[in-house]
Every structure is written in structure tokens, then in C-alpha cells.
């Protein structure tokens, strides 16, 4: 077996495992959700089929055992129990081991037998037919990517079929089981009531079926109708469906293909450019009933076609992360090169060169956006393991916990999500182990016995805020403070605010847990959380109310690779801020200064906005220009003006890391190379605002003396 195919399966299997774990946990909460049961069955079936196809024999065989159990459940021959869910989850863990060991070098016979025996205990004694069906299914791997076909079935039964015990509804139900089926009843031959024999069949049908089944499968459905009426089953070809065209088949085409009208008659009708069906009826070429039937087919095919097109549009390919990174880097280089070309063309002032440069800039920008879009994935992908983690931890700790995910469809760069997994795991473990109380403690505290953990994701400008919220006992600032003093991290006399005390929990080795467990409490975790989040230019914020709960917020950049920035300078230095933080730029005129009455504030429309000088914040010792600019920035907590020497304009910014050199300059989150080779530092507007507040840059101070 080709190793690359196996790798593809291994990735696909992981997605199935994740989905199964989540679905099983949901099923545990609602044991009669048959839609979910069917979904679980299908996932197990896919796992089994794909496993067999890619050479994972043991995995396929074991998945078959689970599939058999869920087949019985979906057929209501077995009830879902918590024991079944637990065994299923344990079996998925075993399947993961089998997935990682395709050659079964370390096959654990004992574990396999124990789980298989456990599954067997849940099963009723199966009848022989079921056993045979299961065995047959086990040997047939699921065919991947089968082509969908469309069949037109015309069925006009003999009048006496009812008395022969044939019920047409059974045929239609079986057609539906093959795929999607649309039926149309022709009722034009039904007589008036007095002339009617109620035991005769006057109705006949046209059906359109979309399925990957063969024509023989369709014919098999009507096996009992053979010889008792008129039956034609025909596959509608792509050309007949006009799949490659935007329009659906026209009425004329359908009537023609069914032989209900001749080519000459079509052309005669076409002479009058009115609705074809109406004209054809008026001219006596066909009947209203046949047009109605053709209309049904037209609208059905329109639906089918939309579905096929939609399937095509939503189909996807799997790309390795590494390849995506190579593409992103190549686009980053292209963006830098394009900036260089723009500068060059501006200097040359040649019309043709400028036109080429502008066109390339447009293309580069589009390419950049597309690559960035490819990298974006819903944050929920990073949270899939949380359901299982919480379920297992809650069982181990004998606590009741409910996980709620809010805003799971919020998108983030895949690289950010990958970096988020470990911190999330630490935070959730901490919530369960330390924050949430035992049910009796919660009841005594006037809370519901079941604790809540909420993972919430929301957009915040160019950032995404992910919060882990619990309704547990909250942080005890006194206890944290006492522990910090005991460990010598702070002096007993230090006067710290509650927020500052909370920050102590991010210090390496800090833990207030009275005993360490195998889950948490060793003081390893929160410092790792902070480091990981900061390594991706994010920040961690803690909010907690003793007795009520804790909210740990992680503010993360949407992407790590390329941003739209605003380029500006102070002295000889160039800087970039994310343009999404910037609301406007204006010149700092003498009038503005005068109107503020010697204070660093700006009256902008109806708002009073404080401003600070970037040269003060970053200690840049160069004389300012005569005409300075103010960049109005929307930060997390306030609107702030940043005075700079000059604003250069918008800049596609390829983010590069600055390494250790700027490790202690929190306001600098990266650097970028400009087209002319110069370097600009990327500033974080929020951290500038934070520094302004921390250092009490006095906005009431005297106006700067130049």
C-alpha cells in the first residue's frame, strides 16, 4: 500500500475519531436521537470501509464490531446505555492505536479481546441472517467517490395490480432508500366516481432518482412489477441534463426526449416565442397533463442539478500543513517583491511600468487574501477533543460538568489554532480539577450540582478572543498572595491589586493546590499557557470573582503571516500597525493644540481623544518634524491618538519574527521588510495603550516643547 495513501487515511481517520467522540458524548445526553445514531453508524461504516481499502485490516475488523452494535441500535434492537457509550469511546482509543500501527507490529491481542467481549455482552443473540449480512458487509469496503447517476422511471401498472397485492408505495419507498427520489403521479385517467372501480389502479408515475446505485439495483426494486404493466428505467445522461450548462433542460427538450412531441412540432411552436408548454397544448401537439409531467421533471432536474453543482463546489482536497506553509512563505516573498517593484516603478515614473506594477499589486493582493482564507479554519476544530477530555475528567473526578461551545464557527489561522490546543487543555483541566466544586459542595453553595464550562470565541477587530469560563469557586486572591509570599515571589509588604495578584499564577511553578493530582496542581501549566499564547502574539487576561467563577480570556491574532498595515515613521525609524486598529489619520495642527488648552487631547467631532507621542513611548531621540501626524487607534479599552512624524500609507505586511533582540519590548510584535530593503517594526496598538496606562503618560501634561 502506498504510504502517502495511508497517510491520507490516517488524517481522515483522525477527523472521524474526533467526530465520533463528539457524537457519542452528545448521544450520551440524548440517547434516543436517531439522527445522531445514524450519523455515528455512518462514521463507523466509513472508518471500516476506508480502513479496509487502505490496508488497515485490524482497524477495519474492529470497527466492524462497533458498526454491528450501532446497526442494532439504529434498528431499535438495542438501547443506548452509558456502558455502551463508555465502551465505544474506549474502543475508539483502541482504534486510534490500530490506526497508528498499520502493520500491527504491537497488536494488543488482550485489549482487543477484552473490548470485543465487552461489545459482545451488549448484543442480543443475532439471527443468522443478520450475521450473514454483517459478514458480507465486512468484506466490502465502502466505495469512495461513486458517481451520482440520475434515472427516469416511468411506471404504468396494469389496472388490477391492487388486487394482486402489489402496493406501488413500496416501490417509491425503496427508491428513496437508494438516494434521492422524486415521484410524480399521473392522474388524468382517473374517471368520475360513479364510473370508478375503486379496486383498480388508474394512476401511473414518473420518478426521478439520483443515486450512486447501478441501473440493475433500480430494476431490482421493480422486480415484482415485471409483467404487470409498462415499466421503463433509463439513466439520464449528463448531456441530457445539460450538466455543463447553466440552464436546466427546457420543456421542449424533455417532451422531445420522452417522445411526447416531434422535432417539427418543437420548431413550429418555437415560431411563437411564448411559453413552450402552453403553446404546445394550445396547438394540440401535446396534452396539459404531459406538460405538467414535463414541468415536474424540469423542476426536479433543476433541484438535482443544483445539488450536483453544490457537491462539486463543496468538494475539497486534503493539503498537508507543510505544503500550505511553503505556499504562504512563497506568497509572503511575492508580497515583499511586489512592494519593491511598486517603489521602483514610482521612482521611474514610467506609465507602462506603473500599469504593470499596479496590476501585479492587485493580483498579489488577491493571491494573498486567498492564501490567508485557505489557512482559516473554524476554532471548533481545535476544541473537538475538549468534549472527550471533559467527559473523562469529570468521571475520574466524580464531578458533573457540562461543556458549552459558543462561536465555534469563528475562524482563525490554522497555525494559531495549532498553538492553542495545549493551552486550552491546561485551562480546561484546571477548571475541572481546581475551579469546579463537587456536586454536594455546589449545592451547599447554592449552585446547580452540574458545573458549567463555556468555551467562547468571538471576533474583536483583527483579533479573536477565546475565553474559558467556569462557574466554579473562582480565584482566591488572598490565598494566591499568601502562597506567593511563602514562595518568596513577592514581599509581604508588596501592595498588589487584585489583577496583579491574579497574574502571579502565570509564574513558573506557582500552584495553590494543596495536593497534586494526575490532572493538575503541579504548577506546570499556567506559565506554559501564557508562554504559548504570547509566542503567537496573543495575550492572556484573567477575570475572576471568588465564589462565582473564573474567565480566562486569550486574545489572539487572526493570522500570523500577513496583515494589512499602516506604515509610518518617527525619526529614522519605520513602523507598522495593523490597519484594522486605525480609524483615521490627521495632522496635528497648531489649532488642535491650542483648542486643547495645553493638554494632549484632541476634540474630534463629538469625542475627546487623548494622544501620546510614540517617540516618548519608545525613547526615540530625534527631533520631531514640524508637521506631525496623529494616528487615531481603536484599542481594546480606549480610543487613543498616536503622534508620529509622517504617515507613509497602507502596506501589505509580511510578518517576520524579531527574535531575542526585541523580546523585552512588548509593544513590538514583529518586523517586516519593505520593498527597498528597509525594516519596519510592527507595533501592537493594544500594548501601546497598555504601556501608556501603566506608565501614566499624563495626557493632562503641558504640551510638548519642541
Amino acid at each position, binding site marked *: 500500500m502506498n504510504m502517502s495513501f495511508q497517510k491520507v487515511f490516517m488524517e481522515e481517520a483522525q477527523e472521524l475519531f474526533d467526530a465520533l467522540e463528539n457524537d457519542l458524548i452528545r448521544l450520551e445526553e440524548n440517547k434516543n436521537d436517531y439522527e445522531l445514531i445514524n450519523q455515528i453508524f455512518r462514521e463507523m461504516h466509513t472508518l471500516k470501509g476506508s480502513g479496509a481499502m487502505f490496508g488497515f485490516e485490524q482497524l477495519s475488523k474492529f470497527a466492524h464490531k462497533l458498526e454491528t452494535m450501532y446497526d442494532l441500535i439504529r434498528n431499535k434492537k438495542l438501547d443506548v446505555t452509558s456502558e455502551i457509550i463508555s465502551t465505544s469511546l474506549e474502543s475508539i482509543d483502541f482504534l486510534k492505536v490500530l490506526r497508528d500501527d498499520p502493520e500491527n507490529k504491537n497488536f494488543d491481542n488482550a485489549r482487543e479481546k477484552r473490548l470485543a467481549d465487552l461489545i459482545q455482552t451488549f448484543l442480543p443473540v443475532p439471527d443468522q441472517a443478520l450475521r450473514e449480512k454483517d459478514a458480507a458487509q465486512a468484506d466490502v469496503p465502502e466505495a469512495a467517490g461513486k458517481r451520482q447517476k440520475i434515472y427516469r422511471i416511468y411506471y404504468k401498472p396494469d389496472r388490477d395490480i*391492487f388486487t394482486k397485492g402489489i402496493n406501488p408505495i413500496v416501490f417509491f419507498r425503496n427508491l428513496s432508500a437508494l438516494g434521492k427520489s422524486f415521484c410524480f403521479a399521473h*392522474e388524468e385517467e382517473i*374517471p368520475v*366516481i360513479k364510473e370508478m372501480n*375503486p379496486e383498480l389502479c*388508474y394512476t401511473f408515475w414518473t420518478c426521478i432518482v439520483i443515486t450512486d446505485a447501478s441501473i440493475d439495483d433500480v430494476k431490482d426494486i421493480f422486480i415484482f412489477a415485471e409483467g404487470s404493466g409498462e415499466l421503463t428505467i433509463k439513466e439520464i445522461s449528463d448531456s441530457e441534463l445539460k450538466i455543463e450548462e447553466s*440552464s436546466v433542460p427546457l420543456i421542449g427538450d424533455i417532451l422531445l426526449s420522452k417522445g411526447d412531441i416531434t422535432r417539427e412540432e418543437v420548431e413550429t411552436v418555437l415560431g411563437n416565442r411564448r*411559453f413552450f*408548454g402552453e403553446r404546445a397544448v394550445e396547438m394540440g401537439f401535446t396534452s396539459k*397533463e404531459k406538460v405538467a409531467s414535463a414541468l415536474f421533471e424540469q423542476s426536479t432536474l433543476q433541484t438535482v442539478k443544483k445539488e450536483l453543482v453544490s457537491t462539486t463546489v463543496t468538494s475539497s482536497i486534503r493539503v498537508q500543513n507543510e505544503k500550505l506553509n511553503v505556499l504562504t512563505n512563497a506568497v509572503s516573498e511575492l508580497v515583499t517583491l511586489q512592494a519593491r517593484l511598486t517603489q521602483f516603478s514610482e521612482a521611474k515614473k514610467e506609465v507602462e511600468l506603473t500599469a504593470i506594477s499596479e496590476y501585479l499589486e492587485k493580483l498579489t493582493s488577491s493571491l494573498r487574501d486567498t492564501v490567508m482564507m485557505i489557512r482559516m479554519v473554524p476554532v471548533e476544530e481545535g476544541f473537538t477533543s475538549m468534549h472527550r477530555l471533559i467527559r473523562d475528567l469529570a468521571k475520574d473526578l466524580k464531578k458533573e460538568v457540562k461543556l458549552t461551545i459558543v462561536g465555534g464557527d469563528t475562524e482563525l489561522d490554522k497555525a494559531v489554532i495549532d498553538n492553542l490546543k495545549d493551552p486550552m487543555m491546561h485551562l480546561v483541566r484546571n477548571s475541572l480539577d481546581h475551579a469546579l466544586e463537587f456536586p454536594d459542595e455546589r449545592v451547599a453553595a447554592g449552585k446547580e450540582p452540574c458545573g458549567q464550562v463555556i468555551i467562547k470565541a468571538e471576533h474583536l477587530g483583527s483579533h479573536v478572543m477565546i475565553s474559558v469560563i467556569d462557574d466554579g469557586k473562582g480565584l482566591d486572591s488572598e490565598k494566591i498572595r499568601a502562597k506567593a509570599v511563602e514562595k518568596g515571589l513577592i514581599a509581604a509588604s508588596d501592595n498588589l491589586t487584585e489583577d496583579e495578584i491574579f497574574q502571579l499564577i502565570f509564574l513558573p511553578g506557582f500552584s495553590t493546590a494543596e495536593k497534586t493530582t494526575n490532572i493538575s496542581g503541579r504548577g506546570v501549566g499556567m506559565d506554559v499557557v501564557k508562554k504559548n499564547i504570547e509566542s503567537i502574539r496573543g495575550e492572556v487576561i484573567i477575570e475572576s470573582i471568588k465564589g462565582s467563577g473564573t474567565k480566562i480570556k486569550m486574545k489572539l491574532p487572526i493570522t500570523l503571516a500577513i496583515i494589512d498595515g499602516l506604515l509610518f515613521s518617527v525619526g529614522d525609524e519605520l513602523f507598522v500597525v495593523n490597519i484594522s486598529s486605525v480609524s483615521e489619520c490627521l495632522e496635528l495642527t497648531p489649532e488642535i493644540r491650542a483648542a486643547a488648552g495645553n493638554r494632549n487631547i484632541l476634540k474630534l467631532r463629538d469625542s475627546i481623544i487623548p494622544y501620546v507621542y510614540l517617540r516618548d513611548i519608545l525613547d526615540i531621540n530625534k527631533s520631531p518634524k514640524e508637521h506631525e501626524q496623529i494616528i487615531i487607534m481603536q484599542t481594546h479599552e480606549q480610543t487613543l491618538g498616536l503622534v508620529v512624524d509622517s504617515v507613509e500609507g497602507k502596506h501589505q505586511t509580511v510578518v517576520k519574527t524579531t527574535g531575542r533582540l526585541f523580546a523585552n519590548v512588548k509593544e513590538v510584535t514583529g518586523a517586516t521588510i519593505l520593498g527597498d530593503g528597509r525594516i519596519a517594526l510592527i507595533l501592537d496598538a493594544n500594548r501601546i495603550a497598555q504601556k501608556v496606562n501603566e506608565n501614566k503618560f499624563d495626557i493632562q501634561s503641558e504640551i510638548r516643547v519642541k
Partner: protein
Amino acid sequence: MTDSYMEIKDDKAVAHIEGPAVIDTAVQIHKVFCDALESKKAVVIDIINVSGYDSTFFQLIRSLCYSLRLENRTLELDEKCKSDLFYETAKEMGIDLRNDCTRNCGSDVSKECYFTKLIKSSVKSQEAPL
């Protein structure tokens, strides 16, 4: 065997259909419908107590509808006609309640097709122009 019957109520012929409306009971339901037609009154079909349907019942309703229309009389379906079972079976049978039937009785379907009178579609409004 069902206990389907017809009664005159509020000057209307009410056809009460009971139990399964299938091939085994088609003859009896046919008789109830014939009685309703004979009454020369507007007809109401009551299917509140119907436990199941097959093609024969839909044929009978279509036939009654057609017969009444030819005599310029009305047919009403009880509210329960919109029950899931009735609607789902009709859909399975290819009787899409959103469209008019193909029985060409020469009437203005949008106004007079009792069974599908709420349905607005007609040849003209559905067809894409050539």
C-alpha cells in the same frame, strides 16, 4: 372493516372516513363517496380517524373532486387533511400537494381545484421560457 359513513350536517354531505383507507376498504369508501355525490350537496371529507392510506384512497379523492367539479359543487377537506400522515403519504405517492393534479377537467385550477386550491402554480408560472 371500517365504519366509514356519510351524514348530512349543516346542509353539507360529510363523508366520515374511519380506520385504514386502503385497498381492503376502498369499496366501502367508494360507496360513501357515491352517497355524498348523490346528496347533491357540498361535500366535506372528514379523515380525522384515518389510520393509514394507500394509492386507492388518493384515487378516490381525486375522482370525487373531479365528479363534484363537473357538477359545479364544492369539496372541502377537514383541517386534519394537513396531517403529517396524509401529507407524507401523498408525497410518497408523487402527489405533490403544492401542484395541481393532472386531471384535465377544464376548470381554472387556481380557483376551483378543491384538493389543491391553495396551490398557485400553473403551467404558465412554473415553466422557464424558451
